[in-house]
């Protein structure tokens, strides 16, 4: 078959442009206007794309990187050992921490002998690249678990998130364990 190259349309949307004079009926534009009105009225009855934000929240994709979360293990102990690799890998230098030694009787709180006494992320600096998550050797920091955005605040200080906001809530850890045991 020898179709001319000009007439091939791979997408099927190719349209030949022509500069022919418009007929009288076309020059009146009335037909075109009625067609346009029909198109817009169709949209009037269409389902709306709006998500009513505070009441409805858009579901995040499973890999969405939102607010960080410091994980706990199955027994509810914090994973983080304050090794500092996340801070080192952070391109925005958003993470600071202070290590402390686990005392006797704190074994139920921290998984290993060393833990982070202070762990702070400056959410204004953070670019949510996820490099901290990749660097972490202890499976401690995750951006994909919380499924939350960092909310707006009035003061810069409020954007520095400490352990009180970052560590996974105990109830969530308990629930995870229960789910795991159930399976």
């Amino acid at each position: 078959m020898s179709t001319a190259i000009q007439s091939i349309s791979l997408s099927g949307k190719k349209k030949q442009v022509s500069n022919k004079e418009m007929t009288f009926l076309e020059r009146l534009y009335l037909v075109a206007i009625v067609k346009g009105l029909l198109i817009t009225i169709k949209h009037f009855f269409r389902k709306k794309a709006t998500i009513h934000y505070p009441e409805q929240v858009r579901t995040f994709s499973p890999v969405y990187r939102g607010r960080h979360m410091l994980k706990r293990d199955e027994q509810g102990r914090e994973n983080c050992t304050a090794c500092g690799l996340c801070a080192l890998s952070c391109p925005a230098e958003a993470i600071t921490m202070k290590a402390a030694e686990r005392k006797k009787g704190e074994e139920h709180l921290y998984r290993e002998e060393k833990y982070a006494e202070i762990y702070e992320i400056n959410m204004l600096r953070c670019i949510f690249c996820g490099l901290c998550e990749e660097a972490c050797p202890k499976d401690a920091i995750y951006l994909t678990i919380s499924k939350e955005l960092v909310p707006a605040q009035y003061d810069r200080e409020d954007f520095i998130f400490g352990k009180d906001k970052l560590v996974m809530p105990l109830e969530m850890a308990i629930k995870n364990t229960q789910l795991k045991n159930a399976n």
Partner: protein
Amino acid sequence: MDSAFIIEKSVVIVTVFAITMIMAMYSTWAERKVAAFLQDRVGPNRAGWGGLLQPLADGMKLFAKEEFEPNTPNKFLFFVGPAIAMSTALMTSAVIPWGDQLEIFGRTVELQATDVDVALLYIFGVVSVGVYGIMIGGWASNNKFSLMGAVRAASQMVSYEVAMGLSMIALLMMTGTLSLKEISEQQAGMNWNVFYQPVGFLIFLICAFAETNRTPFDLAECESELIGGYHTEYSSMKMGFYLFAEYANMFISSAILAILYFGGYNYPGMQWMIDNVGVNTANLLGIGVLFIKICFFIFFYMWVRWTIPRFRYDQLMNLGWKILIPLSIVNIVITGICILAFK
């Protein structure tokens, strides 16, 4: 003239005034809702149920805004502009017959502020004064964008008033009266003028769009070129007056369209209703029918706004002078021939 007559008329006038204001107010809400729906959005829905308190919130916001005044030598004209726009928009509602008549306490109450026998001429006169509000405001703003908007508004008004008047003449030849009341009465039943004057209706409709400065003829304010056009320098309630006047104009011109071409308060079976159910019920239903027609036209204004893009200035002038005016003259000739042939 007894005191009851004065009371009756003042009640009618106040009611008409209030209804015009409320309709204009809720047209702003409807505009935003319709715009949103045509664009697959939901529009204002926070203030009140479905955003119904939105116009109040808007009004309160406008009152709270700073009253900015440009450094202009025409301080007085700067104030007069919005006032003229607003008062002319409201003045036209005086001659519109909202319904036939009601019988209250044995009195026959005409549902019209005044039945002038030159109502149509009166409306034309007042509407043409309306452009002075825009022109004075634009001129007094001492701003090039405003002046451009004002100049465009004026030339557009002049061009389209001619075609509108000519399309009107064809209708007058048919009806033989200038009184809106009589024109409404002539269309009793389904005897609507639009069936006899389709071309005249189309011309009138297009000109009504141009006269109210609505898209696709909103060259006077086109945001994308002239910032806000004639009201660029206005703020606070003066700005609110201009915007409000536009919506009041839209309401009035919808009412005129409904009365001139779509039978006004008439609906099929009205005579039967008067005979069997009662004058008051039948005529109250007539008011409702008129408002349904008006609301449809207001919706149509908005529908067209989100469908057709704005005309270029030369296209506007071409359409007005080279197409609509010859067309309306042809329409007059054909109407004349038909009247001679069939009556």
